[in-house]
């Protein structure tokens, strides 16, 4: 049978973002793939050379737009390394709570987009309904549903509002029951299991060699989480465990393991948030005014030539890193070079290679289970 290239072009309802996947098929089986990125390359690294350090935070929100708070936090840690700023402990707790809330919202968005790919349209409505709960909480903190511009160099912009703790605890406790509803819907559904199990095997050694990190590599049994391996913030003071899945086969982790790892991560994030809000220094029902020393310390605004800052942060999709060189224009007010490492940039060529050997109908399952977000890939 003749082989031909099929283009799943930039405009495609299933690619979760704007990229082209060209597959070479022999009948129904995929024999070769080719991924093309760059359709939303905005040149953020060049633009940031013209901005002050506080003006860069909104750009980092818009890198991976589904998990904006984690990317803003990732940049802020690099800027604090460069400018040598201290952060009060209450601010670190608030950053942890906001990052884990964002992780929950992002995983729900993933499930809400992944479900319809496999065929379960109910999941889209259920997940987006639950995600609205967390977007309301993040809106109380940051002011907007999606791009918050919330963390600042040296702390956070605003303290948690009055009554936030009560609403947070109530919503998280409700969500813990909702996770069980999702599992009831999915884990006993034959279609879900048949489409996900046995599809898209990935071996741990190959993923580590390629640099894949985050839930994708934890699904293969590799216990690597930047939150404990290169620690930052107050993750050692709250009660949690890394979510690692034992793969079901010696051939590696399949799509079902990657789905289970994210469900387990949602459980761990809920546990972390409930623990952190109880342990927050200064009490959960106090609200300090903006600029108070409990939530923010004044940080220098200029970085001399020769200073560098680096941060390693666990974003929702993997380990994201920022590398900033100081000494830009305005006597050091701007960065000389800002470099962004996106976990998805490394994973997408690996995803394209994973698909070889499966059928065309398996493409949505494999692609969706890796949770691509093209905003961070294209920068």
């Amino acid at each position, binding site marked *: 049978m003749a082989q031909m290239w099929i283009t799943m*072009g*930039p*405009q*495609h*309802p299933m690619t979760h*973002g*704007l990229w082209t996947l060209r597959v070479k098929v022999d009948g129904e089986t995929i024999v070769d793939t080719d991924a093309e990125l*760059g*359709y*939303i*390359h*905005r*040149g*953020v690294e*060049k*633009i940031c050379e*013209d901005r002050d350090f506080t003006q860069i935070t*909104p*750009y980092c929100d*818009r890198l991976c*737009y*589904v998990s904006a708070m984690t990317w803003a936090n990732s940049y802020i840690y690099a800027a604090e390394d460069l400018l040598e700023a201290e952060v009060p402990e209450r601010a670190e707790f608030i950053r942890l709570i906001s990052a884990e809330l964002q992780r929950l919202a992002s995983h729900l*968005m993933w499930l809400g*987009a992944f479900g319809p790919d496999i065929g379960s349209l109910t999941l*889209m*409505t259920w997940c*987006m*309904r639950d995600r*609205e709960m967390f977007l309301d909480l993040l809106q109380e903190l940051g002011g907007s*549903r*999606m*791009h918050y511009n919330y963390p600042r160099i040296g702390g956070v912009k605003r303290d948690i509002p009055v009554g936030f703790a009560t609403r947070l605890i109530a919503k998280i406790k409700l969500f813990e029951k909702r996770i069980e509803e999702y599992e009831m819907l999915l884990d006993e559904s034959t279609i879900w299991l048949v489409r996900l199990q046995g599809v898209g095997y990935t071996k741990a050694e190959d993923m580590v060699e390629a640099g894949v990190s985050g839930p994708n590599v934890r699904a293969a049994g590799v216990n690597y989480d930047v939150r404990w391996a290169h620690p930052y913030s107050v993750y050692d003071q709250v009660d949690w465990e890394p979510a690692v899945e034992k793969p079901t086969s010696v051939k590696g982790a399949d799509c079902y393991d990657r789905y289970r790892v994210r469900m387990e991560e949602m459980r761990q994030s809920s546990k972390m948030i409930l623990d952190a809000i109880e342990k927050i220094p200064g009490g959960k029902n106090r609200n300090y005014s903006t600029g108070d020393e409990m939530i923010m310390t004044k940080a220098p605004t200029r970085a001399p030539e020769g200073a560098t800052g680096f941060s390693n942060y666990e974003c929702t999709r993997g380990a994201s890193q920022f590398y900033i060189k100081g000494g830009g224009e305005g006597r050091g007010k701007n960065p000389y070079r800002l470099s962004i490492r996106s976990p998805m940039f490394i994973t997408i060529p690996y995803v394209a290679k994973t698909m070889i050997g499966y059928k065309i109908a398996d493409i949505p399952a494999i692609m969706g289970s890796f949770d691509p977000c093209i*905003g961070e890939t294209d920068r």
Partner: protein
Amino acid sequence: MSNDGENFAAFNSRALVEMVGDVTDEALKATKIKQFLGVLAGRYFNWAGRKSLFTLHLGIKCCAIEMAAAATPRFDGDRFGVLFRSSPRQSDVLLVNGPVSKKFADKIVRLWEQMPEPKYCIAMGECAISGGPYFQSYNILEGVDTVIPVDVYIPGCPPRPEALIDGFGLLREKIIRIGGAPSTGRDGERPVIVGED
């Protein structure tokens, strides 16, 4: 045999059908019924079309998440007839929800050209209106209206889902005004911006 064939062939021939069509057309034009029917049909198609706007399933960047949120139970665009179609051949509205890069510019023009008339374009979010925060970038066009004629602008970064639904409402009002005018002939129309009043 051949006589019968010729007789029936005369009635089935294409030339006869065209001639009858021309005669009827002239008669309708002379009595102004054609103009009346045209106005009636146009009003009817506008009424039907604006209540069911099929939007192309195109998600460029962050505003696509708000577009998806507008289709979910809390905001529910479906009660206004907004449905997402995967193919440009079957959609009426091109909702541009992100910055257009140089690589994507000719593809978005191709999508626009593949859509059948009457078609409308909504620019959602700052990046589609004017380049947004990336207006200085070497790779981003300063607004999608440099390559495609835009009917409704929805400012915001990102605009809330309620603003998107309001944008569809203003597009409906615009359809009543301009109806099925081809998209190339709408240059004189003032663009509609959500939140202007």
